[in-house]
Protein backbone atom coordinates (compact mmCIF):
# COMPACT_ATOMS: atom_id res chain seq x y z
CA UNK A 1 0.00 0.00 0.00
CA UNK A 2 1.34 3.36 -0.91
CA UNK A 3 -0.78 5.28 1.49
CA UNK A 4 -3.90 5.00 3.56
CA UNK A 5 -6.38 7.31 1.93
CA UNK A 6 -9.51 7.36 3.93
CA UNK A 7 -10.08 10.98 3.02
CA UNK A 8 -10.52 10.83 -0.75
CA UNK A 9 -13.64 12.41 -2.22
CA UNK A 10 -15.66 12.27 -5.41
CA UNK A 11 -14.83 14.58 -8.31
CA UNK A 12 -17.25 15.97 -10.85
CA UNK A 13 -16.39 18.11 -13.83
CA UNK A 14 -19.50 19.63 -15.38
CA UNK A 15 -19.69 21.27 -18.78
CA UNK A 16 -16.30 22.97 -18.44
CA UNK A 17 -15.41 25.41 -21.19
CA UNK A 18 -12.11 27.15 -21.69
CA UNK A 19 -10.63 29.17 -24.57
CA UNK A 20 -7.14 30.54 -25.01
CA UNK A 21 -8.03 33.55 -27.14
CA UNK A 22 -9.77 32.18 -30.22
CA UNK A 23 -8.57 28.64 -29.47
CA UNK A 24 -11.49 26.85 -27.80
CA UNK A 25 -9.56 24.17 -25.98
CA UNK A 26 -12.31 22.80 -23.71
CA UNK A 27 -15.79 22.80 -25.18
CA UNK A 28 -18.04 21.34 -22.54
CA UNK A 29 -16.15 18.62 -20.68
CA UNK A 30 -18.04 16.29 -18.35
CA UNK A 31 -16.27 13.77 -16.15
CA UNK A 32 -17.44 12.00 -13.01
CA UNK A 33 -15.05 10.16 -10.75
CA UNK A 34 -16.70 8.52 -7.74
CA UNK A 35 -14.89 8.55 -4.43
CA UNK A 36 -11.90 6.20 -4.54
CA UNK A 37 -12.19 5.56 -8.27
CA UNK A 38 -9.56 6.08 -10.95
CA UNK A 39 -10.37 7.72 -14.26
CA UNK A 40 -7.85 7.47 -17.07
CA UNK A 41 -8.04 10.17 -19.71
CA UNK A 42 -6.74 9.23 -23.14
CA UNK A 43 -6.82 11.10 -26.41
CA UNK A 44 -4.74 12.66 -29.15
CA UNK A 45 -2.19 15.40 -28.59
CA UNK A 46 -3.78 18.82 -28.30
CA UNK A 47 -7.21 17.47 -27.37
CA UNK A 48 -7.13 19.39 -24.07
CA UNK A 49 -6.18 16.70 -21.53
CA UNK A 50 -3.58 18.76 -19.70
CA UNK A 51 -5.80 21.81 -19.80
CA UNK A 52 -8.64 19.81 -18.26
CA UNK A 53 -6.43 18.73 -15.33
CA UNK A 54 -5.36 22.34 -14.79
CA UNK A 55 -8.93 23.53 -14.59
CA UNK A 56 -9.65 20.92 -11.91
CA UNK A 57 -7.14 22.44 -9.47
CA UNK A 58 -7.67 25.88 -10.99
CA UNK A 59 -4.16 26.46 -12.24
CA UNK A 60 -6.37 27.69 -15.08
CA UNK A 61 -9.80 29.14 -14.30
CA UNK A 62 -12.51 27.67 -16.52
CA UNK A 63 -14.57 30.16 -18.51
CA UNK A 64 -17.76 28.28 -17.82
CA UNK A 65 -18.95 25.11 -16.08
CA UNK A 66 -18.29 23.73 -12.63
CA UNK A 67 -15.86 21.54 -10.70
CA UNK A 68 -17.19 19.73 -7.64
CA UNK A 69 -15.39 17.88 -4.88
CA UNK A 70 -17.59 15.73 -2.71
CA UNK A 71 -20.61 17.24 -4.47
CA UNK A 72 -19.71 20.83 -3.67
CA UNK A 73 -18.47 23.41 -6.16
CA UNK A 74 -14.88 24.50 -5.58
CA UNK A 75 -14.88 27.48 -7.90
CA UNK A 76 -15.67 29.85 -5.06
CA UNK A 77 -12.97 28.43 -2.77
CA UNK A 78 -9.55 29.90 -2.15
CA UNK A 79 -7.48 28.38 -4.99
CA UNK A 80 -4.42 27.84 -2.78
CA UNK A 81 -6.49 25.92 -0.23
CA UNK A 82 -8.11 23.92 -3.04
CA UNK A 83 -4.71 22.94 -4.43
CA UNK A 84 -3.72 21.48 -1.09
CA UNK A 85 -6.71 19.15 -1.42
CA UNK A 86 -5.91 18.23 -5.02
CA UNK A 87 -2.43 16.84 -5.61
CA UNK A 88 -0.88 17.08 -9.04
CA UNK A 89 2.01 15.27 -10.70
CA UNK A 90 3.55 16.59 -13.91
CA UNK A 91 5.27 14.97 -16.86
CA UNK A 92 8.51 16.81 -16.06
CA UNK A 93 8.26 16.23 -12.26
CA UNK A 94 8.76 19.94 -11.49
CA UNK A 95 10.86 19.13 -8.44
CA UNK A 96 12.71 22.05 -6.90
CA UNK A 97 16.34 21.49 -7.93
CA UNK A 98 17.80 23.82 -5.31
CA UNK A 99 16.55 21.71 -2.42
CA UNK A 100 17.27 18.19 -1.25
CA UNK A 101 14.73 15.49 -1.95
CA UNK A 102 13.66 15.64 1.68
CA UNK A 103 13.11 19.38 1.62
CA UNK A 104 11.08 19.09 -1.56
CA UNK A 105 8.67 17.00 0.47
CA UNK A 106 8.82 18.90 3.76
CA UNK A 107 8.53 22.40 2.30
CA UNK A 108 4.75 22.47 1.95
CA UNK A 109 4.29 20.50 5.18
CA UNK A 110 6.17 23.13 7.08
CA UNK A 111 5.02 26.28 5.32
CA UNK A 112 1.45 25.38 4.51
CA UNK A 113 0.55 22.71 7.07
CA UNK A 114 2.66 24.48 9.72
CA UNK A 115 4.20 21.24 10.96
CA UNK A 116 7.34 21.50 13.07
CA UNK A 117 10.65 20.50 11.51
CA UNK A 118 10.76 17.10 13.19
CA UNK A 119 7.17 16.22 12.46
CA UNK A 120 7.46 17.29 8.82
CA UNK A 121 10.58 15.21 8.42
CA UNK A 122 8.90 12.16 9.94
CA UNK A 123 5.93 12.49 7.58
CA UNK A 124 8.20 13.11 4.59
CA UNK A 125 10.49 10.18 5.33
CA UNK A 126 7.52 7.87 5.76
CA UNK A 127 6.09 9.07 2.45
CA UNK A 128 9.43 8.63 0.67
CA UNK A 129 9.69 5.13 2.09
CA UNK A 130 6.25 4.30 0.74
CA UNK A 131 7.39 5.17 -2.78
CA UNK A 132 10.58 3.18 -2.24
CA UNK A 133 12.98 6.07 -1.83
CA UNK A 134 13.91 6.06 1.84
CA UNK A 135 17.59 6.13 0.94
CA UNK A 136 17.36 9.20 -1.27
CA UNK A 137 16.14 11.77 1.24
CA UNK A 138 19.37 13.74 1.36
CA UNK A 139 20.16 13.70 -2.36
CA UNK A 140 19.60 16.55 -4.72
CA UNK A 141 16.58 15.93 -6.93
CA UNK A 142 18.72 15.85 -10.08
CA UNK A 143 20.65 12.87 -8.75
CA UNK A 144 18.03 10.18 -8.63
CA UNK A 145 16.99 8.70 -11.95
CA UNK A 146 13.95 10.09 -13.73
CA UNK A 147 11.81 7.32 -12.29
CA UNK A 148 12.96 8.15 -8.79
CA UNK A 149 12.37 11.84 -9.36
CA UNK A 150 8.82 11.18 -10.40
CA UNK A 151 8.29 9.06 -7.29
CA UNK A 152 9.66 11.94 -5.22
CA UNK A 153 7.14 14.21 -6.94
CA UNK A 154 4.37 11.77 -6.07
CA UNK A 155 5.55 11.57 -2.46
CA UNK A 156 5.66 15.36 -2.32
CA UNK A 157 2.05 15.59 -3.44
CA UNK A 158 0.87 12.73 -1.22
CA UNK A 159 2.54 14.13 1.89
CA UNK A 160 -0.16 16.80 1.99
CA UNK A 161 -2.83 14.06 2.21
CA UNK A 162 -4.74 15.16 -0.87
CA UNK A 163 -8.32 14.07 -1.43
CA UNK A 164 -7.87 13.78 -5.20
CA UNK A 165 -4.73 13.16 -7.27
CA UNK A 166 -4.15 14.35 -10.83
CA UNK A 167 -1.44 12.80 -13.01
CA UNK A 168 -0.46 14.46 -16.28
CA UNK A 169 1.47 11.92 -18.37
CA UNK A 170 3.54 11.08 -15.32
CA UNK A 171 5.60 8.47 -17.16
CA UNK A 172 5.98 10.07 -20.60
CA UNK A 173 9.36 11.62 -19.86
CA UNK A 174 10.84 8.41 -18.42
CA UNK A 175 13.09 5.83 -19.97
CA UNK A 176 11.07 2.68 -20.65
CA UNK A 177 12.73 0.64 -17.91
CA UNK A 178 11.76 3.24 -15.29
CA UNK A 179 8.09 3.48 -16.24
CA UNK A 180 7.18 0.32 -14.36
CA UNK A 181 8.14 1.60 -10.93
CA UNK A 182 6.15 4.80 -11.27
CA UNK A 183 3.09 3.06 -12.65
CA UNK A 184 3.39 0.63 -9.73
CA UNK A 185 3.21 3.43 -7.22
CA UNK A 186 0.19 4.85 -9.03
CA UNK A 187 -1.54 1.49 -9.14
CA UNK A 188 -0.94 1.05 -5.40
CA UNK A 189 -2.41 4.44 -4.75
CA UNK A 190 -5.46 3.60 -6.80
CA UNK A 191 -5.88 0.33 -4.95
CA UNK A 192 -5.59 2.17 -1.65
CA UNK A 193 -8.69 4.16 -2.51
CA UNK A 194 -7.39 7.46 -3.82
CA UNK A 195 -9.64 9.31 -6.22
CA UNK A 196 -7.46 9.83 -9.29
CA UNK A 197 -7.56 11.36 -12.75
CA UNK A 198 -4.72 9.97 -14.82
CA UNK A 199 -3.87 11.40 -18.23
CA UNK A 200 -1.80 8.67 -19.83
CA UNK A 201 -0.60 7.01 -22.98
CA UNK A 202 -0.06 3.76 -21.06
CA UNK A 203 -3.02 1.76 -22.34
CA UNK A 204 -2.03 -1.28 -20.28
CA UNK A 205 -2.27 0.79 -17.12
CA UNK A 206 -5.62 2.23 -18.19
CA UNK A 207 -6.97 -1.23 -18.91
CA UNK A 208 -5.88 -2.72 -15.59
CA UNK A 209 -6.20 0.11 -13.11
CA UNK A 210 -8.90 2.46 -14.40
CA UNK A 211 -12.50 2.24 -13.28
CA UNK A 212 -13.41 4.64 -16.07
CA UNK A 213 -11.58 5.47 -19.27
CA UNK A 214 -12.48 8.80 -20.88
CA UNK A 215 -11.52 9.53 -24.45
CA UNK A 216 -10.95 13.22 -25.04
CA UNK A 217 -11.11 14.62 -28.51
CA UNK A 218 -11.09 18.24 -29.62
CA UNK A 219 -12.10 19.63 -26.25
CA UNK A 220 -14.81 17.21 -25.18
CA UNK A 221 -15.01 13.78 -23.59
CA UNK A 222 -16.30 12.00 -26.64
CA UNK A 223 -16.76 8.63 -24.98
CA UNK A 224 -16.30 7.32 -21.44
CA UNK A 225 -16.89 3.96 -19.83
CA UNK A 226 -15.27 0.98 -18.14
CA UNK A 227 -12.00 -0.10 -19.78
CA UNK A 228 -13.51 -3.19 -21.42
CA UNK A 229 -16.15 -1.09 -23.13
CA UNK A 230 -13.67 1.48 -24.33
CA UNK A 231 -10.99 -0.94 -25.48
CA UNK A 232 -13.22 -3.73 -26.86
CA UNK A 233 -16.46 -2.06 -27.93
CA UNK A 234 -15.68 1.55 -28.77
CA UNK A 235 -18.69 3.28 -30.25
CA UNK A 236 -17.06 6.23 -31.95
CA UNK A 237 -15.06 5.91 -35.12
CA UNK A 238 -12.52 8.46 -33.88
CA UNK A 239 -11.86 6.47 -30.72
CA UNK A 240 -11.42 3.26 -32.68
CA UNK A 241 -8.98 5.00 -34.99
CA UNK A 242 -7.08 6.43 -32.00
CA UNK A 243 -6.84 3.00 -30.37
CA UNK A 244 -5.65 1.45 -33.62
CA UNK A 245 -2.81 3.95 -33.62
CA UNK A 246 -1.68 3.56 -30.03
CA UNK A 247 -2.22 -0.13 -29.34
Amino acid sequence: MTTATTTSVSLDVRDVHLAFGPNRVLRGVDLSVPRGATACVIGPSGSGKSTLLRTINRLIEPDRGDVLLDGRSVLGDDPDALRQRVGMVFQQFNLFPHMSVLRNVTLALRRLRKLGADEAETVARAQLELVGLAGKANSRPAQPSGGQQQRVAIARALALRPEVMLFDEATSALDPELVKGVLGVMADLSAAGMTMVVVTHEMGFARQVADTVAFMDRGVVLEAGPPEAIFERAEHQRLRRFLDQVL
Partner: protein
Amino acid sequence: MDPLSTLWETFFDADAMREALPEMLTVGLPNTLILAVSAALLGSVLGLLLAVAGISRSRWLRWPARVYTDVFRGLPAAATILLIGVGLAPLGMQVWGPDPYPLGILALSLIAAAYIGEIFRSGIQSVEAAQLEGSRALGFSWADSMRLVIIPQGIRRVLPAWVNQLIALIKDSSLVYFLGLVASQRELFRIGQDYAATTGNESALLLAGLCYLALTVPLTHVVNWIDRRLRNGRPATVSTEEDDDDIPSYAATEGDRR
Protein backbone atom coordinates in the same frame (compact mmCIF):
# COMPACT_ATOMS: atom_id res chain seq x y z
CA MET B 1 69.40 60.25 -14.18
CA ASP B 2 68.32 58.67 -17.37
CA PRO B 3 64.60 58.86 -18.27
CA LEU B 4 64.04 55.15 -17.68
CA SER B 5 65.18 55.20 -14.07
CA THR B 6 63.22 58.43 -13.51
CA LEU B 7 60.16 56.60 -14.69
CA TRP B 8 61.03 53.68 -12.44
CA GLU B 9 61.46 55.96 -9.44
CA THR B 10 58.13 57.67 -10.18
CA PHE B 11 56.15 54.45 -9.95
CA PHE B 12 58.23 51.96 -8.02
CA ASP B 13 59.89 53.97 -5.27
CA ALA B 14 60.13 51.37 -2.51
CA ASP B 15 60.61 53.95 0.22
CA ALA B 16 57.52 55.89 -0.82
CA MET B 17 55.52 52.67 -0.82
CA ARG B 18 56.85 51.60 2.53
CA GLU B 19 55.89 54.96 3.96
CA ALA B 20 52.31 54.76 2.65
CA LEU B 21 51.76 51.08 3.41
CA PRO B 22 50.75 51.23 7.11
CA GLU B 23 48.08 53.86 6.56
CA MET B 24 46.95 52.10 3.42
CA LEU B 25 46.33 48.89 5.35
CA THR B 26 45.01 50.26 8.65
CA VAL B 27 42.90 53.14 7.31
CA GLY B 28 42.38 52.85 3.56
CA LEU B 29 41.61 49.16 3.28
CA PRO B 30 39.05 49.01 6.12
CA ASN B 31 37.31 52.13 4.78
CA THR B 32 37.14 50.80 1.25
CA LEU B 33 35.71 47.55 2.60
CA ILE B 34 33.15 49.38 4.76
CA LEU B 35 31.97 51.39 1.77
CA ALA B 36 31.90 48.47 -0.65
CA VAL B 37 30.36 45.89 1.69
CA SER B 38 27.64 48.18 3.05
CA ALA B 39 26.75 49.35 -0.45
CA ALA B 40 26.74 45.74 -1.65
CA LEU B 41 24.30 44.71 1.07
CA LEU B 42 21.97 47.66 0.67
CA GLY B 43 22.29 47.59 -3.11
CA SER B 44 21.41 43.88 -3.22
CA VAL B 45 18.33 44.33 -1.05
CA LEU B 46 17.17 47.28 -3.15
CA GLY B 47 18.09 45.39 -6.31
CA LEU B 48 15.94 42.44 -5.28
CA LEU B 49 12.99 44.76 -4.65
CA LEU B 50 13.55 46.35 -8.06
CA ALA B 51 13.73 42.94 -9.72
CA VAL B 52 10.47 41.80 -8.14
CA ALA B 53 8.79 45.11 -9.00
CA GLY B 54 10.13 44.80 -12.53
CA ILE B 55 8.35 41.48 -13.14
CA SER B 56 5.22 42.38 -11.20
CA ARG B 57 1.90 42.19 -12.94
CA SER B 58 1.09 45.69 -11.73
CA ARG B 59 2.32 48.45 -13.99
CA TRP B 60 2.42 50.75 -10.96
CA LEU B 61 5.35 48.66 -9.76
CA ARG B 62 6.85 47.83 -13.14
CA TRP B 63 7.05 51.37 -14.40
CA PRO B 64 8.81 53.03 -11.47
CA ALA B 65 11.30 50.14 -11.42
CA ARG B 66 11.98 50.64 -15.12
CA VAL B 67 12.47 54.39 -14.80
CA TYR B 68 14.66 54.02 -11.72
CA THR B 69 16.87 51.51 -13.50
CA ASP B 70 17.21 53.65 -16.61
CA VAL B 71 18.12 56.74 -14.60
CA PHE B 72 20.65 55.21 -12.24
CA ARG B 73 22.29 53.09 -14.91
CA GLY B 74 22.37 56.01 -17.29
CA LEU B 75 24.04 58.59 -15.06
CA PRO B 76 27.82 58.66 -14.53
CA ALA B 77 28.57 57.27 -11.09
CA ALA B 78 30.54 60.40 -10.21
CA ALA B 79 27.53 62.60 -11.00
CA THR B 80 25.18 60.50 -8.89
CA ILE B 81 27.56 60.47 -5.95
CA LEU B 82 27.99 64.23 -6.08
CA LEU B 83 24.30 64.89 -6.56
CA ILE B 84 23.30 62.74 -3.61
CA GLY B 85 26.31 63.35 -1.41
CA VAL B 86 26.24 67.10 -1.79
CA GLY B 87 22.56 67.59 -2.52
CA LEU B 88 21.38 65.68 0.51
CA ALA B 89 24.18 66.86 2.78
CA PRO B 90 22.04 69.49 4.57
CA LEU B 91 19.51 66.79 5.34
CA GLY B 92 22.23 64.37 6.43
CA MET B 93 23.71 67.04 8.64
CA GLN B 94 20.52 67.13 10.69
CA VAL B 95 20.21 63.37 10.96
CA TRP B 96 23.75 62.16 11.60
CA GLY B 97 26.04 65.15 11.34
CA PRO B 98 28.80 65.96 8.86
CA ASP B 99 29.92 62.38 8.21
CA PRO B 100 29.86 61.90 4.39
CA TYR B 101 29.84 58.09 4.63
CA PRO B 102 26.11 57.46 4.97
CA LEU B 103 25.33 59.49 1.86
CA GLY B 104 28.30 58.01 0.02
CA ILE B 105 27.09 54.52 0.84
CA LEU B 106 23.54 55.49 -0.12
CA ALA B 107 24.67 56.82 -3.50
CA LEU B 108 26.81 53.75 -4.19
CA SER B 109 23.90 51.50 -3.16
CA LEU B 110 21.42 53.30 -5.39
CA ILE B 111 23.74 52.91 -8.36
CA ALA B 112 24.51 49.26 -7.58
CA ALA B 113 20.80 48.51 -7.07
CA ALA B 114 20.04 49.51 -10.66
CA TYR B 115 22.56 47.02 -12.01
CA ILE B 116 21.91 44.28 -9.46
CA GLY B 117 18.16 44.66 -10.04
CA GLU B 118 18.64 43.90 -13.72
CA ILE B 119 20.91 40.97 -12.92
CA PHE B 120 18.41 39.46 -10.47
CA ARG B 121 15.49 40.09 -12.79
CA SER B 122 17.13 38.22 -15.67
CA GLY B 123 17.94 35.33 -13.33
CA ILE B 124 14.44 35.15 -11.93
CA GLN B 125 12.92 35.29 -15.39
CA SER B 126 15.16 32.45 -16.54
CA VAL B 127 13.51 30.03 -14.10
CA GLU B 128 11.13 27.78 -16.02
CA ALA B 129 7.41 28.45 -15.74
CA ALA B 130 7.04 24.80 -14.73
CA GLN B 131 8.70 25.59 -11.40
CA LEU B 132 6.04 28.15 -10.62
CA GLU B 133 3.33 25.75 -11.72
CA GLY B 134 4.77 22.98 -9.55
CA SER B 135 4.82 25.28 -6.57
CA ARG B 136 1.34 26.69 -7.17
CA ALA B 137 0.01 23.14 -7.59
CA LEU B 138 1.22 22.35 -4.07
CA GLY B 139 -0.87 25.21 -2.74
CA PHE B 140 1.76 27.92 -2.39
CA SER B 141 0.62 31.46 -3.11
CA TRP B 142 2.30 33.43 -5.85
CA ALA B 143 4.31 35.38 -3.28
CA ASP B 144 5.44 32.24 -1.42
CA SER B 145 6.31 30.57 -4.71
CA MET B 146 8.49 33.49 -5.67
CA ARG B 147 10.15 33.66 -2.28
CA LEU B 148 10.77 29.95 -1.74
CA VAL B 149 11.13 28.51 -5.21
CA ILE B 150 11.67 31.02 -8.01
CA ILE B 151 13.87 33.74 -6.53
CA PRO B 152 16.39 31.41 -4.84
CA GLN B 153 16.90 29.53 -8.11
CA GLY B 154 17.03 32.71 -10.18
CA ILE B 155 19.62 34.38 -7.98
CA ARG B 156 21.78 31.27 -7.93
CA ARG B 157 21.97 31.38 -11.71
CA VAL B 158 23.26 34.96 -11.80
CA LEU B 159 25.72 34.83 -8.91
CA PRO B 160 28.70 35.32 -11.26
CA ALA B 161 27.20 38.56 -12.62
CA TRP B 162 26.40 39.63 -9.06
CA VAL B 163 30.01 39.14 -7.96
CA ASN B 164 31.11 41.18 -10.99
CA GLN B 165 28.92 43.95 -9.64
CA LEU B 166 30.69 43.72 -6.27
CA ILE B 167 33.98 44.20 -8.10
CA ALA B 168 32.56 47.33 -9.73
CA LEU B 169 31.47 48.55 -6.29
CA ILE B 170 34.94 48.14 -4.81
CA LYS B 171 36.30 50.30 -7.61
CA ASP B 172 33.50 52.87 -7.50
CA SER B 173 33.87 53.28 -3.75
CA SER B 174 36.93 55.43 -4.57
CA LEU B 175 34.56 58.10 -5.88
CA VAL B 176 33.33 59.09 -2.40
CA TYR B 177 36.48 61.15 -2.06
CA PHE B 178 34.45 63.83 -3.90
CA LEU B 179 32.44 64.28 -0.75
CA GLY B 180 35.38 65.49 1.32
CA LEU B 181 36.83 63.02 3.79
CA VAL B 182 38.67 63.71 7.03
CA ALA B 183 41.96 61.86 7.44
CA SER B 184 40.54 58.83 9.23
CA GLN B 185 37.82 58.39 6.58
CA ARG B 186 40.09 58.20 3.59
CA GLU B 187 39.86 55.03 1.55
CA LEU B 188 42.59 53.37 -0.51
CA PHE B 189 42.47 55.67 -3.48
CA ARG B 190 42.41 58.89 -1.45
CA ILE B 191 45.36 57.85 0.68
CA GLY B 192 47.36 56.91 -2.40
CA GLN B 193 46.45 60.18 -4.02
CA ASP B 194 47.39 62.23 -0.96
CA TYR B 195 50.82 60.66 -0.71
CA ALA B 196 51.31 61.13 -4.43
CA ALA B 197 50.36 64.79 -4.19
CA THR B 198 52.67 65.59 -1.28
CA THR B 199 55.68 63.68 -2.58
CA GLY B 200 55.22 64.23 -6.30
CA ASN B 201 55.73 60.48 -6.68
CA GLU B 202 53.09 58.10 -7.96
CA SER B 203 54.34 55.03 -6.11
CA ALA B 204 51.79 55.32 -3.31
CA LEU B 205 49.00 55.52 -5.86
CA LEU B 206 50.37 52.45 -7.54
CA LEU B 207 50.35 50.74 -4.16
CA ALA B 208 46.70 51.68 -3.79
CA GLY B 209 46.12 50.14 -7.19
CA LEU B 210 47.79 46.93 -6.02
CA CYS B 211 45.50 46.88 -2.99
CA TYR B 212 42.46 47.13 -5.28
CA LEU B 213 43.82 44.30 -7.38
CA ALA B 214 44.37 42.22 -4.25
CA LEU B 215 40.64 42.58 -3.58
CA THR B 216 39.25 42.32 -7.10
CA VAL B 217 41.39 39.67 -8.75
CA PRO B 218 40.47 36.95 -6.22
CA LEU B 219 36.84 37.92 -6.74
CA THR B 220 37.13 37.39 -10.49
CA HIS B 221 38.36 33.91 -9.67
CA VAL B 222 35.36 33.43 -7.42
CA VAL B 223 33.22 34.36 -10.42
CA ASN B 224 34.90 31.74 -12.56
CA TRP B 225 34.64 29.15 -9.83
CA ILE B 226 30.91 29.75 -9.32
CA ASP B 227 30.43 29.74 -13.06
CA ARG B 228 32.11 26.35 -13.39
CA ARG B 229 30.13 24.93 -10.50
CA LEU B 230 26.85 26.12 -11.93
CA ARG B 231 27.69 24.68 -15.32
CA ASN B 232 28.81 21.29 -14.09
CA GLY B 233 26.07 20.99 -11.50
CA ARG B 234 26.88 21.06 -7.83
CA PRO B 235 29.02 18.29 -6.39
CA ALA B 236 27.11 15.35 -4.99
CA THR B 237 25.94 15.72 -1.42
CA VAL B 238 25.26 12.02 -1.08
CA SER B 239 26.46 9.24 -3.29
CA THR B 240 23.70 7.33 -5.01
CA GLU B 241 25.03 3.87 -5.47
CA GLU B 242 21.70 2.21 -4.72
CA ASP B 243 19.82 0.79 -7.65
CA ASP B 244 16.41 1.76 -8.85
CA ASP B 245 14.83 -1.52 -7.84
CA ASP B 246 14.00 -0.74 -4.23
CA ILE B 247 10.44 -0.09 -5.29
CA PRO B 248 7.52 -1.33 -3.25
CA SER B 249 5.31 -4.24 -4.15
CA TYR B 250 2.52 -3.18 -6.42
CA ALA B 251 -0.30 -4.46 -8.54
CA ALA B 252 1.02 -5.87 -11.79
CA THR B 253 0.56 -3.27 -14.47
CA GLU B 254 3.47 -3.83 -16.75
CA GLY B 255 2.13 -7.00 -18.34
CA ASP B 256 0.78 -5.65 -21.59
CA ARG B 257 2.59 -2.40 -21.71
CA ARG B 258 4.41 -1.51 -24.93
